[in-house]
Each structure stands twice: as structure tokens, then as C-alpha cells.
């Protein structure tokens, strides 16, 4: 039986991406999504694929400082850009306060949505430090959590915002 050929190499451009501070160069098929590139090729499995059509938010990562859906962006679109994932943002300590608050409040159950939720929450903490409870709810509405009922998550984010306001 004759096999058809693999995708020719010209359809797999070379990209260079700074992932969690490390420069990574790879050839990737043009159709490969950023989330699959991170998970399958770099082994960064902390970001999850929940729906692969941009709704659930489990694949949320940061590209050049802005949160994006890893399932709606192609890996080639990340060429020359900086990508931060839950692994890097945990190691750098940037998410430390939120992670502590989430832990204290049990703002997670199965944990599948949690990395994406934390990135969305950090986006709010950094960009909207005066957010009200309903604004927190609104901001997190792009990230599904099926376990918690959201209340503990909102409580945890509220805790962090309140602590920050107190310390400044």
C-alpha cells in the first residue's frame, strides 16, 4: 500500500517565540494552534483544551502581555512574540497572591479551568484594581468553571484586590 506524503516542509514555517522567558525556535505546521504548540511540542500542559472553539477559556495564555485564547490563535501568529503560560507565571511569582487566595478560599475544585481563570483574574487585578464584585463577575464570564458556582473565585479575587488597596 502506498502512503501519501506528509505535509511539505514549506507549509511548516519556522517560528521563534519567547515562551516563559526562554527563546524557542521550531518549525510548526501553519494550521497548528498556539495551545497545541504549547502543549504538544513544548510540554507545557498547564494550559488546557476545553472546547477548542474559543468559549470556555481553559486555554487562556498571555501573548505580549494580553490574555488570549490559545485555541483561537495559530502558533505561527506568535512568531516574534512573548508567550506566558501558567507555568512561567507561577515560577515568576506573578500569580502568587491570587494562587494563595484561591487556595485559602477553595476557589477551585477539579482545577481544569484554574490556569485560565487565574490568568483572566490577573488581567483584572493588573488592569482594573478598583473592580467591584459585579465587575469581577463580568470580567471572569469568559472563563467557564463547572465545579464551583464561581462564588469562591469571586471571593478570592475580591480578597486580592482588597489587600492591594490596603497596602497602597
Amino acid at each position, binding site marked *: *500500500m*502506498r*502512503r*501519501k*506524503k*506528509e*505535509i511539505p516542509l514549506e507549509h511548516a514555517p519556522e517560528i521563534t517565540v519567547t515562551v516563559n522567558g526562554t527563546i524557542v525556535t521550531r518549525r510548526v*505546521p501553519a*494550521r497548528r494552534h498556539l495551545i497545541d504548540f504549547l*502543549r504538544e511540542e513544548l510540554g*507545557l*500542559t*498547564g*494550559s*488546557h*483544551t*476545553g*472546547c*477548542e*472553539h*474559543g*468559549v*470556555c477559556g481553559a486555554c487562556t495564555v498571555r501573548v505580549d502581555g494580553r490574555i488570549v485564547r490559545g485555541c483561537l490563535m495559530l502558533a505561527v501568529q506568535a512568531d516574534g512574540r512573548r508567550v506566558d503560560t*501558567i*507555568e512561567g507565571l*507561577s515560577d515568576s511569582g506573578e500569580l502568587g497572591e491570587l*494562587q494563595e487566595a*484561591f*487556595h*485559602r*478560599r*477553595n476557589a*477551585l*475544585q*477539579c*482545577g*481544569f*479551568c*484554574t*490556569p485560565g481563570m*487565574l490568568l483572566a483574574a490577573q488581567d483584572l487585578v493588573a488592569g482594573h484594581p478598583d473592580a467591584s464584585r*459585579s465587575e*469581577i*463577575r*463580568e470580567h*471572569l*464570564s*469568559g*472563563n*467557564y*468553571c*463547572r*465545579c*464551583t*458556582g*464561581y*462564588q*469562591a*473565585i*469571586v471571593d478570592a479575587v475580591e480578597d486580592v484586590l482588597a489587600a492591594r488597596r490596603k497596602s497602597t
Partner: protein
Amino acid sequence: MDTTNSGYVGKSVPRANARRLLQGRGTYVDDLRLPRLAHVVFFRSPHAHARLRKLDLAAARTMPGVIAVVDGAALAPYCKPWVGVLGHLKGIKSPPQHAIAIGRACWQGEAVAAVVAETREQAEDALEKIEAEWEELPVVVEMKDALSGRRVIHQELGDNICFKRELDTGAVDEAFAKADIVVEETYDFGRHTGVTLEPRSILADYNAAEHTLTVYHATQTPHMMQDIFSRHLDIPEGNVRVIAKDVGGSFGIKVHVYADEMAAAALSVMLRRPVKFVADRLESFISDIHAREHTATVRLACSKEGDILAFDLDDLTGIGPYSVYPRTSGIEGNQVVNLTGGPYKHQQYRAKMHVVFTNKNVTCQYRAVGHPIAVAITEAIVDLAAAKLGMDPAEFRRRNLVPDDAYPYTFPSGLKFEKLSHHQALDRLLELMDYKALRTEQAALRAKGVYRGIGLAAMIEVTNPSPAFYGVGGARISSQDGATLRFEPTGTITCLVSVTEQGQGTEGAFAQVAASALGVSIDRVRVVTGDTAVTPYGGGTWASRGAGIGGEAVLQAGKVLRERILEVASAILKTDKSELDIASDEIVSKVSGEPRLELSELGRVAYFRPDTLPMDFQSQLMVTRHYTPRSYGFTFTNGIQASLVEVDADTGAVTLLKHWCVEDCGTVINPMLVDEQIRGGIAQGIGAALYEECLYSPEGQLLNGNLADYLLPMAGEMPDIIVAHVTTPTQTSELGAKGAGEAGTAGAPAAVMNAINDALAPFGARVTAQPFTPERILRALGKVS
């Protein structure tokens, strides 16, 4: 936080295993990589009912990276078919189901071929090259159509009735004849599904040299699946190991046998290499079990004084073309019959229930199984009766709830309640929500054209089931669980439990129980679950049983291990055991509390210098205990919920303003975990009430099988949810814990339904079909036709 003896039960201790999940360092099945890993995807029927005239797999086989393309007949020798029936559901019937369907598909989404390739992309590319020629067959989509039997899906079964049940206490007609008022209403429930954020996932690794199968599985029941793989793939039980690492939500979705998962395991055997299957979200919608498609007509007889005399129920539920193995799809309807009217003291009850086959995706047990239906129809008709009598719904309930001093109590359906606390819960709820003030506010706002509604929903809930649930019916589903506690040389404790962790906090709760039983600090306890090669044998996670059953096993093992530790201490210290105790990680003098020996020192001597101990002494620092509930078939819990909503009469939009739940799950091991479990359950119940429905076309096509069109509750829509407890520990165990995981889901739809109808009352309008979409509300208001 108290870290001394018995300090942890009842405390909101953060759970240790959450830390890895917070850093994205958990391990879900899709995170695993094995050498020679192959990926399987499925070719699924685009039709609800069709015969395969021709299936051409040749082109797919030539695609890059493809390892195998197989149809049902090719895989059949590797996996025995199954039939989803149970002995105690008399008369239940279902046809055999294969890992890959052979020759005919009975719902849109049933797989008829599989492609295995080196990568998932390659497998998906090859999938597009499969050519199928279908002969469409007549479809049965509506439940009533199925019941009529005009078209029969499985000719060999004779009709479309999977299971039916009738129950009659004998004097229902007399009760209705002498009733002052009779109310009757029909309720419709749209089918919905669990939507675990982690899709169903399995990685099966067959080792041909050893004839062993290791399965990494997103499952609630590793031991049940071990037994299933063993029997259906013909591999000795001892050669099958099932490992459930982190599981991304379950809610009952991951407790069933799925054909595609069995196919992945069979393909691993066939191809002698590891094979992974992870459902994508679109196939989750057409292959994860659905649940709760019911139409129920209920009648209630009542005296003019407000005493409920009788309930009369007729329930019809549609389950797709197969009864799901091994739990069957008969249980949900059976539960509706068991539970309807459950909180109340009437003595007459009649029920009729049919479970019918349809050409839609299969349905089976999803969180709270049957309860959301039973509670909704009970509480809606109770409200209707109260309204007809002109009685306040809270007062009407108070009059009819089974009194708190009536226990043990046998409900007319035959259920036995050990001890419930309906009246305490009702009082607590009304106080918590300030019911009277809300009613006053509601009246004032109504005058201003703001339509708020208050809905109450009392409930009972099955928890801690004995073998009465499945075992008596012949299912190899264990209702017992086991715990092994091992004292380690450094004085830490390893706790191996057969209950699994799906995020509900099982491991954290067990650590609390173990630490409390032993007198050690909680950070010394490491809990391990989810591995059939490691933990004791047990049932796993389902039916709100983990804390109550697994927790009792941990407690009993801990108590024995504590004695064993003290025996070693006694030998080392040459002091009578009765004079010693464990507190704050040390052996102390029982009387003075004075520290005598570090646990790490005890461990050092016991494991490395036993030669220094008396000649006839052997330390035994590992203890296993099992527990199964014996005195009741089920340990019932009770609770009551309330919902406050505002309905926009112009748009039909419902805004959830607040939600309350008072629940009695006995001993609360960790209030923070229990409360958030209840809140999560309520959110799922709210989803059912307002948003979630798997919509099918008349041809049996799922119309909204994606996350953009199938609506889930989001943070912005959920209200704050106030949770409180009445605590009536069960006397059936020393721990006293009953289940809590399903209570929220059981009661929330009813509370929301009653709140909406309360808001609509000034218009004389009612809604009775879930989910209560703006369109349905506007129809009820006569604003759209």
C-alpha cells in the same frame, strides 16, 4: 487553626492537592506522553438511525501516519458486547452494545469506525477519507412516539419500552375523592448534559509480553472499570490496572461505560501499543451521556385545612437507543418514582413511569439522578396547591413536612429515613433569608411594576448507598470502600483510599479525618487515591458517598493505627500503653501531656532498629479498614433551598438575585469544601432551570452541540449563594457524615421554577417547561405566540 488532637473535623482547612492544580502542574490524562503512543479518533454516524450499506476505509488507510482503520466487526473479537440491565429493575431490557457499532447506528454520534494514527491531527485527516453509504431508517425522537410503539427501534425487543414501574399504596382514588382541592400539572424537562470541562479521556497501554493492561482514565470508578476491562477484553483482573490521576470534573459523566473508551482499550490490545482517546467538545455533546428528558404529570389531593392527602404521578423519560452499562438508564426514572413527594407526610401515593428508547444520544446518571425532576414536580405542585388554598407556601410546607420527631420514618414509596430535620431546616432558611421582609419588599416592588419572585424547594436526597443501589441487581459495583493508613519512618502518614478525587476535595477531607484520628498535624498526612494497584478495593465516587463511606473507613483505620503506634511507643518507652497518647505529632504522657517521644524517633526505631525492642514484639504500622453502610439502604439527607429572582415582563429575562440553601449532611468535615460543593451543585441546577438544553430536530439531529450554542452558567449570571447547615449526624457510622455533593443540583431547579412562577403570579401566568428561557416566559405571558 487547631493542629492538636481531633482538631480538623469541622474546620475549613484548605486542601493540599489544590496547590499543583493552581500552578498548572496537575496531570490529566491528556497531559500524559508514552513511547509509541497512538491516537484514536472516531467516525461517527451523521444520522440518528441508519444502516451502513457500505463503509470504505481504504483511502483512510493510505493517509500519513495512519496505523489502523477498523470497523465494528474488526474490533469485535477484542471486546465482548454488553447489555445495560440490572436484576432488581424487573423487566428492564436493552440490546447488546458493541465497542464500535456494527452495521447500524442508532443515534447521531454513534461511532462506526475508528482511525488510529501517530498524531491526532493525522488521525483526523484520515477520518475525512472514510466513505460511508448510509440507508436512513425511520427515527423515533419524541418520547410519546416511542411509547406508542408505532416504530420500534430494536425489533428484537418488541417495543420501545426499556423499563416500566408502577407503585400504588392502595387508597389513592379514595384520597382524591374526599379531597377538597385537587391540583394537576404537567412538567417538561429538557435533556441536558454534564459538560465536564475536561472532556472524557482515556489512555490504554497494553503490554503484550505480560498480557497486562494499564489504563489512565478520567474516571470516578477505577475498580469498576478494572473489572469491566478485565471481563470485556478478556484479561485477568489482576493484570488490569486503572489509574485516575487528576480528573477535570465528573458529575456522573465519568462513571459509565462508553463505547469509544472501550474501543480505545480494545485497540491498544489489538495494536499492542498505547492508544489515547480524548473527546473533543463537539463529540462530547453527542457522546457524553445526556440526562433528565422527562415529561411528568402530577396530581395532588389536599384538604381545605391544607393537609396533603395524596400524590399521583405519571412520568415518561426517554433514554436514547441503549440502556447505559453497567448502571442502566432505568435508575433515573426509578428515582423519580422513589422520591416524588418525599419531604411530606401524606400516606397515599401512586406512580407510573415509563423509560423509553429513542434515537437520540443515550442518557444515564448525572449529578443528583432523578432528584431534580422529583423535587421540581413535587415543589411546583405543592406551590400550586398552596396558591389554590390561599396559603403562604412556607406555611403550607411547615404544615405538611414530616415532623422532626417522626423518625425513623417510612415513606409511602417504601424508602426508610433514619433521621431528617425538615422543620429545623425550614426555620433556619426563613430566618437566613428574612422571608417576611422579602415578601414585604416583593409586594412594594410589585406596586412599582417590578416583578420579583420567591421560590422554596424542600428536598430529600439519597446518599451513602448500600448494595441496594446496584449490587443487589447483579452489578459488580462496590458499595464499600477501604482505607489503608501507613505510618512512615519519619512519622508521616500515607493514606490510601479507594474513593477518587474529582476536585470535590475528597483527599483533603480524608487528610482531616486521618490527622484527627491519629493526633498528628495535617501536613504530615499524604493521601493517595485513584490507582487500583495501590489503594484498597472500593466503589469510588458516585451517589454522594465519598466522605460518608470512605471517610468512615479512614476514621476506623486511623483509630486502629493510633493504637498500633502507641504499642510501639509503649515498647520503646517501657511504659504501659494506657499511660500514653498522641498529640501534636508526639507521643505524650496521657495524664500530664508531657512530651515523651517524637513520632520520627518512633519511626526510626520501629523500622531501622527493631532489634532494640523486646524479643517478642513486632510493630504493625499499616492498617486497612473497610466500611459499607448496613442498617439502611440509603442514608437520606434533607435540605431546603430558596431562590429570589426578578423577571422582566417585557423581555422574559430572569435575573437571579440571591439563592439560599440549608442542608443537613450530618457531620460536616470541611465547611468550606461542603459549601462550595453545594454552590457548584446549585449552579448546575440553575443551568438546568434557565439555560441548558440539548435541542434535537425532528430528524434526531442535535442542534446546539457546541459551547457557543449550549449555554452554561457564567460568573456574571450567578447570584451569591448563601449556604447554612443543620447537623444531624447519621448514627450508622462513627463519623456521622452523610453526602453533600448532589444536594445543590437536586433542589435548585425547583426553587428557581417556583420563584419565576411566583414572579409571574400577578399576570396569572405559569411556566412548566425547563429550561425557562425568555421565549417560554414571554409565551406564558401571552406576549409572543
